[in-house]
């Protein structure tokens, strides 16, 4: 009852298990032949053995199959074409008529077990090894039967009768307690009329359940909630390239299974529904948790809820169900339900159920409620309440310190640092500080960054000392991310000043990423210990549905589906999915880092690696992110046409991910495209949509808000509303400064310089450009620096022709970077400015060196036409026409002028050519 945890692993004998026993008897009859009677070959015999093994191990459902389902499964298992088996099974079942029959049956069953002195047995004889999987199963059945009271035997008998009598067509449930039995008023009409509807619902549900992917690893149970903890990688978007090839994950999943197989049995207990063994149910829950973690929206809210409700009804003491309900409602953004279920779960389990990391401490009857706090904190974070989350996590830190639960503390610190990363919290001194951070006790107030750094260090150290490999890896990633965007300053500001170089350190980032990658070698060596054979068996049972060529495992079907077979073959040595996910994240972070540092090829390569190698293992948002990077790359380097078609593919693939990066990416592309084509209204509209995506809470979704602000300013700039643009950019700068978004500051400053340049105030623009340059330098943003250099050159140029040489030198300095890594727009801009420099240089003789200028301009105009950037294309053609005019080549001049006219017209009459 209260406070007593019912021991897991209790094993009840059910009709289904009796049928499995009957098959076992066929498999290993107490005879002496190597291949017993009904079997044609050894292979067939082995196949039955495998089938039975899979039956006892698989965890694809919570209830045992009914007789007809079981027979169907058995048939599909292949090779058992004759009806002999099924007849034998049904007749054996129907011969069990009195309690005594059952007693005799189980006494016989004991006969097929080998004695403890199995060495004496001849080679030919078929005996089940006592310690084999099937042997243990049989022994448990016999033991469970022997433990039954007479009432229990009577119940078993009744149940077998029901089990046997159930019509194969599975008559519709008489009355179903429906989805929400308390509140539904629908049933007033008539309960009979609802039946079709209900069946329909169930069918739909089962389809959805089928569509899920089997994850295959064992993960610490509580780690499923904190999706947020694992995806420490966020992106800062810069272009990438896309490969349209993608794995067919998820598409082929619906092919297995007949509809009855996964159809939910009705919950009427009189119809003989039995829960599978505890082990199998837990395995099922584990798999579901993995699925939700990977891609929450692939599990339907109500469908899974029904299963969980049923499970709760059948096993009220299995509290993990509440946790799954929490996960389910969280992934479907039901805040209230998630909160309730979370509290409920921890009230019942006291956090002692399933936290696999901590060996059970026998003396501690206290419970581990700090885990509840950790989960609650992460839930609040997930729902966008950073303040509440911080409050809860602070409490978690305190309680874990009190309970000296270092594991939990390490996780909590990681969660807090993640929280600080994601959300701009301008001052934490009041909330945090007091309880943790060794420095505050000295009375030194730290900035948020410094606190973050201290937290990360603390968490990493703890995780290392506790050997929490996944946490170590994800902490390294977090560190890398921190190093990427923060300049480190010494923590103590007094004492002899150490040498400070105010730059980020790319070497550190690389080092951290590499350290996190070591995780794979840790798991590679101990892989076999981590596998769950339940998933293995489940996969096997499902593969049975496919047409079989040989009687060996279904390896040959590899051509049709990649992932399943990969999972299947690679299983015994494979690496847990969560580890793969982390590794995938490290690749994404690399891609992001290279984006920032300005190496487009490396960034693209890393995104590609993620998209090809980790697509199956990573969470859907990570996978989407990789695609987004590739699409952006495509847009910047190959123009919009390709990008949009790639986007279409990605949209289909990530259909379910609602507020996703894909949508964001689409809006970004649309905005860029609209700006280039001069469709300013559309651009403004898209910009507004982008802004709506961000949460209204201050300090949340900062990236998104910055992005929206930048694009707003750019739209205003394109509309020549310089004052408004400048004011937007200015307030954006203030925001970024307040929340310490330094990297974004660089681009905001550049934008300001750009605005002033366009408005004709080159002198005002210069300091902004210089400031942006220095930001770029200290954060190693090479590509952005090149772009800032270009702007600087333009500014110089617009100060008068006497500065042309200076500008030219600047451009030539930036050219290697721009031509090596820059996109179409940047390159063509560089070409045009170079041409302008030459043309305005009084020492430059056009008629002698016109090739230099014309080449640049032609290059630029080609690229700009790809981008449909009318304004700049027009400029290029104008310059070209001027040059030709000077050279006196009238024909070519007319040609260039015509192109110029075309682009100007297109710019002034923007129409939607296509979406």
């Amino acid at each position, binding site marked *: 009852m209260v406070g007593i945890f019912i021991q897991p692993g209790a094993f009840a004998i059910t009709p289904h298990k009796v049928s499995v026993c009957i098959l076992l008897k066929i498999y290993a009859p107490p005879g002496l032949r190597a291949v017993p009677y009904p079997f044609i070959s050894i292979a067939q015999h082995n196949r039955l053995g495998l089938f039975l093994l899979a039956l006892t191990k698989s965890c694809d459902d919570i209830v045992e199959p009914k007789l007809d389902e079981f027979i169907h499964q058995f048939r599909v298992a292949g090779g058992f074409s004759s009806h002999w088996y099924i007849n034998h099974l049904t007749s054996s079942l129907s011969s069990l008529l009195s309690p005594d029959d059952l007693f005799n049956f189980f006494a016989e069953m004991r006969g097929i077990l080998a004695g403890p002195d199995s060495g004496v047995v001849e080679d030919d004889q078929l005996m089940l090894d006592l310690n084999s999987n099937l042997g243990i199963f049989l022994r448990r059945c016999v033991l469970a039967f022997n433990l039954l009271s007479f009432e229990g035997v009577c119940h078993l008998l009744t149940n077998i009768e029901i089990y046997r009598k159930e019509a194969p067509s599975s008559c519709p449930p008489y009355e179903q307690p429906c989805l929400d039995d308390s509140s539904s008023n629908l049933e007033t009409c008539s309960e009979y009329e609802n039946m079709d509807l209900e069946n329909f619902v169930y069918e739909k549900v089962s389809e959805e359940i089928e569509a899920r992917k089997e994850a295959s690893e064992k993960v610490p149970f509580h780690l499923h909630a904190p999706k947020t903890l694992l995806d420490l990688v966020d992106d800062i978007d810069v272009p990438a390239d896309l490969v349209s090839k993608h794995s067919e994950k998820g598409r082929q999943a619906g092919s297995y299974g007949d509809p009855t197989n996964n159809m939910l049995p009705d919950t009427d*207990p009189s119809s003989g529904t039995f829960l599978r063994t505890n082990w199998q149910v837990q395995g099922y829950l584990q798999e579901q948790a993995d699925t939700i973690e990977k891609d929450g929206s692939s599990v339907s809210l109500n469908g899974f809820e029904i299963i969980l409700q049923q499970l709760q009804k059948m*096993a009220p003491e299995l509290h993990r169900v509440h946790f799954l309900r929490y996960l389910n409602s969280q992934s479907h953004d039901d805040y209230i339900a998630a909160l309730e279920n979370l509290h409920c779960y921890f*009230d019942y389990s006291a956090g002692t159920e399933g936290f696999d990391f901590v060996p059970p401490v026998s003396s501690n009857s206290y*419970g581990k409620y700090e885990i509840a706090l950790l989960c609650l904190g992460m839930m609040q974070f997930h729902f966008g309440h950073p303040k509440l989350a911080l409050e809860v996590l602070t*409490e978690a830190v305190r309680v874990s310190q009190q309970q000296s639960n270092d594991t939990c503390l390490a996780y909590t610190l990681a969660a807090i640092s993640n929280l600080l990363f994601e959300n701009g919290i301008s001052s934490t001194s009041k909330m945090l500080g007091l309880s943790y951070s060794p420095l505050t006790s000295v009375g030194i107030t730290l900035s948020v960054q410094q606190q973050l750094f201290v937290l990360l260090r603390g968490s990493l150290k703890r995780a290392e000392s506790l050997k929490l490999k996944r946490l170590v890896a994800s902490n390294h990633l977090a560190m890398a991310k921190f190093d990427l965007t923060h300049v480190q300053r010494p923590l103590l500001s007094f004492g002899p000043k150490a040498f400070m170089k105010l730059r980020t350190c790319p070497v550190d980032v690389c080092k951290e990423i590499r350290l996190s990658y070591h995780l794979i070698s840790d798991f590679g060596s101990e892989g076999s210990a981590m596998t769950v054979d339940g998933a293995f068996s489940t996969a096997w049972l499902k593969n049975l549905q496919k047409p079989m060529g040989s009687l060996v495992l279904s390896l040959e079907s590899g051509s049709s589906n990649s992932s399943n077979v990969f999972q299947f073959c690679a299983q015994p040595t494979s690496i847990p999915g969560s580890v793969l996910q982390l590794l995938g994240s490290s690749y994404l972070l690399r891609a992001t880092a290279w984006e920032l540092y300005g190496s487009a090829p490396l960034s693209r390569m890393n995104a590609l690696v993620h998209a090809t190698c980790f697509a199956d293992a990573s969470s859907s948002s990570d996978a989407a992110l990789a695609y987004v990077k590739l699409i952006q790359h495509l847009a910047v380097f190959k123009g919009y046409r390709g990008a949009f078609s790639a986007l279409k593919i990605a949209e289909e693939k990530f259909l379910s991910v609602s507020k996703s990066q894909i949508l964001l990416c689409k809006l970004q592309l649309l905005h860029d495209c609209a700006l280039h084509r001069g469709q300013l209204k559309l651009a403004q509209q898209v910009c507004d949509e982008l802004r709506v995506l961000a949460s209204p809470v201050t300090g949340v979704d900062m990236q998104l808000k910055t992005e929206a602000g930048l694009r707003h300013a750019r739209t205003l700039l394109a509309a020549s509303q310089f004052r408004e643009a400048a004011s937007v950019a200015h307030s954006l700068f203030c925001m970024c400064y307040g929340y310490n978004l330094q990297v974004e500051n660089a681009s905001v400053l550049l934008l300001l310089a750009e605005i002033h340049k366009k408005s004709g105030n080159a002198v005002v623009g210069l300091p902004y450009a210089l400031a942006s340059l220095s930001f770029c330098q200290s954060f190693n943003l090479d590509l952005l620096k090149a772009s800032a250099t270009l702007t600087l050159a333009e500014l110089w140029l617009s100060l008068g022709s006497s500065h042309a040489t200076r500008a030219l030198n600047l451009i030539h300095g930036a050219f290697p970077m721009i031509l090596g890594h820059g996109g179409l727009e940047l390159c063509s801009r560089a070409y045009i400015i170079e041409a302008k420099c030459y043309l305005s240089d009084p020492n430059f003789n056009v008629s002698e060196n016109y090739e230099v200028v014309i080449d640049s301009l032609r290059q630029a105009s080609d690229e700009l036409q790809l981008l449909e950037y009318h304004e700049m294309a027009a400029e290029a053609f104008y310059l070209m026409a001027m040059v030709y005019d000077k050279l006196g080549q009238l024909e070519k001049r007319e040609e260039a002028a015509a192109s110029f006219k075309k682009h100007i017209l297109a710019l002034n009459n923007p129409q939607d050519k296509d979406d």
Partner: protein
Amino acid sequence: MSSKESCRIVERKKESCRSELRIAIRQLNDRCLYSASKWAAEQLTGIEQDPAKFTPSNTRFQRGSSSIQRRYRTNEITATPVAGVSYVTTPVMVEDDLVDGDFYLLAKSYFDCREYKRAAHVLRDQSGRKSLFLRFYALYLAGEKRKEEEMIELEGPLGKSDAINRELVPLERELSTLRKNGTIDPFGLYLYGLVLKQNGSESLARTVLEESVNNYPWNWNVWSELQSLCTTIDILNSLNLNNHWMKDFFLASAYQELRMHNEALAKYQYLQGTFCYSNYIQAQVAKVQYSLREFDQVEATFEELLRNDPYRVDDMDMYSNVLYAKESASALSHLAHRVFMTDKYRPESCCIIGNYYSLKGMHEKSVVYFRRALKLNKNYLSAWTLMGHEFVEMKNTPAAVDAYRRAVDIDPCDYRAWYGLGQAYEMMGMPFYALHYFRKSVFLQPNDSRLWIAMGQCYETEQLRMLDEAIKCYRRAADCNDGEAIALHQLAKLHSEVGRADEAAFYYKKDLERMEDEEREGPNVVEALIYLATYCRAQERYEEAEVYCTRLLDYTGPERETAKSLLRGMGMGSSQSGPPGMDIEQFPP
């Protein structure tokens, strides 16, 4: 209308109630609906007898009844019958005795011996209405009995005990065809509703039960089933019920369940106009008063009840709660002994004993008895909550949390269990986590100052220090008539901590006034006086300050010195303030 005439009308009404009930009791007995007939009979004797017609022996039960009632009735609003309510007279059902024959008699005997299946078998071909009902009812009860047995037999490792009444499905099938044919009587409808409810089709069950009570209102079982289906006030209001005096009983009990205590109380008081000696109503009134925390009245009522009905076990657990709250151990032990002798295997009895041990501080023993109560009835709400309290006392917080959570899962409106959960988590040093539970409990019972105070204290803990929120809580507590006057003091203290001197002074003053009214002394008075004195001096209201200081001089200890220095600081030291100051200087205590 003359008083005599109105008197006659009341008398006529009583008489009609009486005759209706008499017939109903017989009919209910014929159908073996014993608890309903018990209830009806109780109400029948609850009607005040016409003294002219009956000898004193007839009114034995009613004699001397109510010194206490009278005592408390003086300050009540005399319940006047709602004007213009015309009751629908439901025609009394005519029995068709001719059809039911000897088999019915045999079956009823079997039924009375609790051999239900046998009874049903005897009636298998009978077509009389009584026989038909009795067969259904016997089948239903047979299924229930088997279910209870199976519940223990089937208890699985994961707590699965989903034994069901296997007769429900065939019963539902038969009853629904009967209903479609239109040959079903109100009793059949009752059974149909019962079956539907257990099968989970609640709204249909409601309709059916509604139909049943509109045709035959005297079956209390139907009303109580209907009431259990009215989980919100909206559902209750949507019911279409004929006006019958039984409806008032129903409404009262429904209001009570929906925690509309004052409405329930009004209804019961109205009913007492007719059924003034009804034990049932008396107990229900006590229940409502218990929810309103009027313990003295509840105690008096129960004493009275026990005098009239000494072997009563129903509702006695609540009486024990009252005795527990008043810490009268001997009375509680007496009660425990009494119920123990009457019927020891009632969950109420176990609960009372558990309460007794708890009061004695023997928490392990008390847990044993609460466990027993829960064994007898797994859904016995208050036992779970009380057991949670015991575990809290035993410092076994996880077990306490578990117990409370089970209570909450049985009834999500049990504010005590939510409160208990909050308390348990606060004990474990997780005040922020606890707030969730306090919020729940406060939401359910917004007029209970103790809950607000608990929540305020939670906000005030040194881990949180969310003083503004704490102040809000205490303000709510002070608004709902905080009996122990914690809120005012805390409000004053917190305001002074946050640095809002005006508010702090206001609340100190209020607190001081209150303590003066209740003639209480203690450190709080001193604290208030010191603060007020300092405050007034800072505000340059020297006269007031002087008043407070002089009051402080009555105390011994450091505060007297403070007062003296304050007085001196105001430039009216001992020399100016006259005799009292001089006394102090010259005659130290």
